[in-house]
């Protein structure tokens, strides 16, 4: 066996694996950013949206045998409704929020979603058939699953949709205005309350998509939300909180570092790698590696 080639193929394999994982973190991070920009809240239930998306998709495709496309749309809509309900029932009614109270409220919501998921779907992990088979494709000696290609493609699509929405649609521009200066936006006649609701809806939608596409590969269970949320937050901070394109790059980077760490350091500490990076970034440069510290100063912590 040619060992140089072997090493190259291994690295390539880890890169593919890393980008695949990282795509999910990137999407979770985008979800964090949307809500953060609209409200200044970090939604601790972000990971639960991913779980709900994954589990709902499992039920629709595996139990009800619906087509992938139809289930996909249905699942995203379902999770969006959950996101809107969360905002209407738990965030909107709080008239005098303190940071601590908001943190605990979103934690409470995450516990509730987790509890409901456990009651409906049980505690076992759920597997789901891949979108288009499991026969791996060759890629410069490494192998790649069709599902992985789906993940790359969907992340790409989400990013494009994101850019179009925030740059070329009125609603998107209004949301950006709210993110930059809420009071000014309100004076300009933008309904900021509606924008908050919309941000929860979109962020839930992105979470659901992430959950749907990753489930065939990792098998979903009710308890995965916390870890996905934490790593997604790591990506969001690494990319500079509030900066969604930074989050995409950071998410992918985090995934790759994690995969390489698992391959060359220890697979047992794989989950810890992303978290250690998160802590380091928070401690050394809370504005993120890719974010600017000047912009950070303007935001409230």
């Amino acid at each position, binding site marked *: 066996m040619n060992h140089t080639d072997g090493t190259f193929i291994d690295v390539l394999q880890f890169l593919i694996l890393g980008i695949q994982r990282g795509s999910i973190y990137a999407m979770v991070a985008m979800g964090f950013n949307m809500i953060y920009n609209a409200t200044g809240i970090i939604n601790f239930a972000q990971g639960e949206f991913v779980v709900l998306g994954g589990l709902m998709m499992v039920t629709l495709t595996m139990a009800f045998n619906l087509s992938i496309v139809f289930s996909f749309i249905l699942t995203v809509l379902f999770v969006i409704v959950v996101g809107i309900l969360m905002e209407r029932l738990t965030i909107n009614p709080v008239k005098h929020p303190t940071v601590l109270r908001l943190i605990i409220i979103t934690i409470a919501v995450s516990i509730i979603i987790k509890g409901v998921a456990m009651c409906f779907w049980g505690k076992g992990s759920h597997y789901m058939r891949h979108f288009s088979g499991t026969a791996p494709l060759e890629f410069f000696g490494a192998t790649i699953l069709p599902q992985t290609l789906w993940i790359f493609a969907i992340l790409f699509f989400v990013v494009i949709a994101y850019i179009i929405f925030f740059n070329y649609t009125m609603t998107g521009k209004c949301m950006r205005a709210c993110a930059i200066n809420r009071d000014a936006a309100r004076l300009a006649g933008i309904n900021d309350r509606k924008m908050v609701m919309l941000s929860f809806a979109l962020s839930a939608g992105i979470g659901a998509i992430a959950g749907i596409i990753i489930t065939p590969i990792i098998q979903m269970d009710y308890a995965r939300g916390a870890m996905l949320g934490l790593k997604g937050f790591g990506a969001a901070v690494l990319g500079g909180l509030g900066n969604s394109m930074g989050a995409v790059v950071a998410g992918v980077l985090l995934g790759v570092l994690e995969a390489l760490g698992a391959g060359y350091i220890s697979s047992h500490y794989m989950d810890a790698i992303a*978290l250690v990076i998160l802590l380091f970034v928070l401690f050394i440069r809370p504005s993120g590696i890719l974010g600017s510290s000047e912009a950070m100063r303007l935001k409230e912590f």
Partner: protein
Amino acid sequence: MKGKNSAGFFALVISIIAIPFIITNDYYIGVLVFAAFNCLACIGLCLLMGYAGQISIGHGAFVAIGAYTSGILTSKLAWSPWLAMLCGVLIVIVVAFSLGIPALRLKGHYLAMATLGFASIVHIVAVAAVDLTGGPSGIVNIPRLDLFGYVLNSDTQYYYFSWSVVALAVFIAFNLVNSRVGRGLQAIHGSEDAASSLGINITSYKVQIFILSAVFSSISGSLYAYYMNYIDPGPFGVMHSVLLVTMVAVGGLHNIWGALIGAIALSLLPEFLSFLSDYLQVLGIHYQPDYDTLVYGSILLIIMLFLPEGIFDGLASTLRGSKSFYGKLAGRRTGRVQ
């Protein structure tokens, strides 16, 4: 301590002494022992969150470090349980110090996430460092605690011991909050700028109280290990840290009694629910322990939405018959905007 608080303390001591005469079933005494561990951790967390205003969703990690230090040193190196507990405390002081210095510069969401991340890392290490922690199989054969050569064998003995520790912790906490240091902490919570303009070293105070609360958690973990005689990573997941925050928040952040009530109430909740499930069964409702998580979450959410100051404050207001209670219900309190 003085006034109402010392009366409350007196009542606490009396209740601690009296309960084993009323409840004779060892199992329920055992449940109360677990409640004591949670009380201990929650008192520390209350000092940190309620008084100094710094959130931590990572105190389960300190409980874990205390428990694992005790477990490893006693079962593998045959140390005395007391010495192992002390060692756990020292390790936690070092860890809390190294974590606290950078972490406590962060505020709000960032601090919450940093501590949550820390808790998660500790849990991962407990699972993955198989040679040290036994991995998912955990550590068996942890000895019992002895008191002056007298081994605490029965649940009742352990009950008295652990609740004495809780009483001591309550005593310390009340002394602290009504002292110069306690006022300093509350000042930091009120306004960091104003506090430092009065000569309070904010960083040092935050780190000190972080360490103190971590030590409470560590002792709680060690006592847990000696009581269970067995530990594994299961109970030390992120959810445990969240649960501790829940207990403090449900009881009432700004009051030691609140934390105590929250910890006791939520520790007994699963028993209450399993008791309730026997009756629900009659009504045709099949309640499963699985629903507990849902109940915890709902309680937390309802408290945070309608009684943000916690049950204790809510109860106290109701007993005073004060109008402000209804004001709070409607969420119309002023002066709390941040």
